[in-house]
């Protein structure tokens, strides 16, 4: 499904818009990485799409429908999965309860099916960890749980806000292996917000560089810009 941002200006308060004039189209099955400095407005774009922050002009169109007047839960129900920065889970719920909560409209049977399917990507779903309170999981597992929770709803489009931030390099690679596999097998449209430029380039077909709330560059990743060139954009 296609996601379109048309000329979005938005942020917390009216006179303090964090992002300005954002135009971005993500085609079905396409993956776009959003990179940029800390505080440039990357996460704001995600929150605006999801109706968690207001925008003052422009339109968000998903799958042909205007999402402007919808609240977060309706937007999520229309098939967008959102991985929140930091890999948030419900710490006092058990791992399995977290999954139930994530797919709270699913019937028990369907939920079990989904968990079964996901255990192909997430090995920990086979284990006994499911009864453990999520707050007690190790950082890496908690992160994977958060990702599994997003996927259990079987979304058609993913918005991933720094899915590997704060992970050790090994876990980071593991997370990306899962994501790449998912992308190939499920043909999802993806917006990936990522600090790590190399990962962003490896993962996505297209890169968008945000600077001070505006799109500075929008380029194909396969024409292989050298690290030097990208760092020139940054520095």
């Amino acid at each position: 499904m296609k996601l379109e941002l048309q000329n979005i200006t938005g942020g917390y308060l009216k006179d303090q818009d964090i992002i300005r004039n954002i135009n971005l189209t993500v085609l079905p099955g396409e993956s776009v990485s959003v990179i940029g400095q800390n505080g440039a407005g990357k996460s704001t774009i995600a929150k605006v799409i999801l109706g968690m922050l207001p925008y003052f002009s422009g339109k968000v169109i998903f799958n042909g429908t205007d999402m402007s007047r919808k609240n977060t839960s309706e937007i999520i129900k229309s098939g967008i999965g959102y991985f929140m920065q930091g890999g948030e889970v419900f710490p006092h719920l058990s791992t399995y309860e977290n999954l139930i909560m994530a797919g709270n409209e699913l019937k028990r049977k369907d939920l079990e099916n989904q968990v079964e399917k996901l255990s192909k990507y997430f090995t920990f779903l086979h284990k006994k960890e499911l009864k453990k309170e999520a707050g007690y999981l190790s950082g890496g597992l908690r992160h994977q749980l958060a990702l599994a929770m997003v996927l259990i709803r079987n979304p058609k489009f993913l918005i991933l806000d720094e899915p590997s931030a704060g992970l050790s390099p090994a876990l980071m690679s593991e997370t990306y292996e899962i994501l790449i596999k998912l992308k190939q097998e499920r043909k999802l449209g993806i917006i990936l917000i990522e600090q790590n430029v190399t990962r962003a380039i490896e993962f996505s077909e297209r890169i968008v560089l945000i600077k001070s709330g505006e799109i500075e560059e929008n380029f194909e990743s396969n024409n292989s810009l050298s690290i030097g060139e990208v760092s020139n954009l940054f520095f």
Partner: protein
Amino acid sequence: MLTQFLINGFINGAIYAMVALGFAIVYNTTRIFHIAFAILYMIAPYLVYSFYSQAGYPLVLSSVAAIVCIVLISVLIELIIYRPLIKKKSSLNVIMISSIGLMIVGINVIALIYGNDTKILSSSISNTISLGNIIITYKQFTQLVISTLAISGFMVFLKYSKFGIKTRAMRDNVTLCNVFALNVPKFRLSLYALSGAFAAIGGILISLDVGMDPYIGMPMFLNAVVALIIGGIGKFHAPLFGGIFIGLLQSLVVWKFSANWQDLMTFSILIIFLIFRPQGLFGEKQRLV
């Protein structure tokens, strides 16, 4: 003698625990300092009084009807008072002050309708059950059974039902609930309904024994809040221990000194907890910032 006091204290504590749980259902999930909860507790017995003593319906039926009414009022408070404020992004303080205003209105409306004097539901002296030299009245027995049933029923529900999982998820992280497509405003209504039911049951149970006046809500509310703080905010089993703790403590004060000093003890304990262990007996340390 001491055992008798402790038993009385335990039964009172069970009711505190139940009322505290009712408050915790709202406070833990929404962080609203829902003072109007006090009038829900107070109005319930008056409704029973109207249905039972005035209109002559059976006590059980009257109580059920009263509980239903209170549940409705509780939901309406959320719909009419709190929700518009939340939409306006008012601070929690503003919401609390509105709640105080509502409480003032509630108390005085009841005082206007029913008068300031104490009303009693039944004046008959209750039969008693004796176990050795411990005496429990039927009313106390009813209080104990119903509050225990209500509390344990809720605990089971909280642990095993989807509703329970959602409630605990709301306590943990409301934003994340949104992200998983929970209709938060709608879900809050059911939390208020449940909370109202607990308040109503508590109010009716206590009034069986000692009757009612328009001002009973606040002291009970305060006991419930203290129970919650002592147990630990954010934990659903906490008010249970907090409530029984206060109940027992108060009975000891009555035994050693007199009932007049109960509040002094309760609130000194509150302040001691606030100073030395604000997270309560079972709470986790809250991170600043």
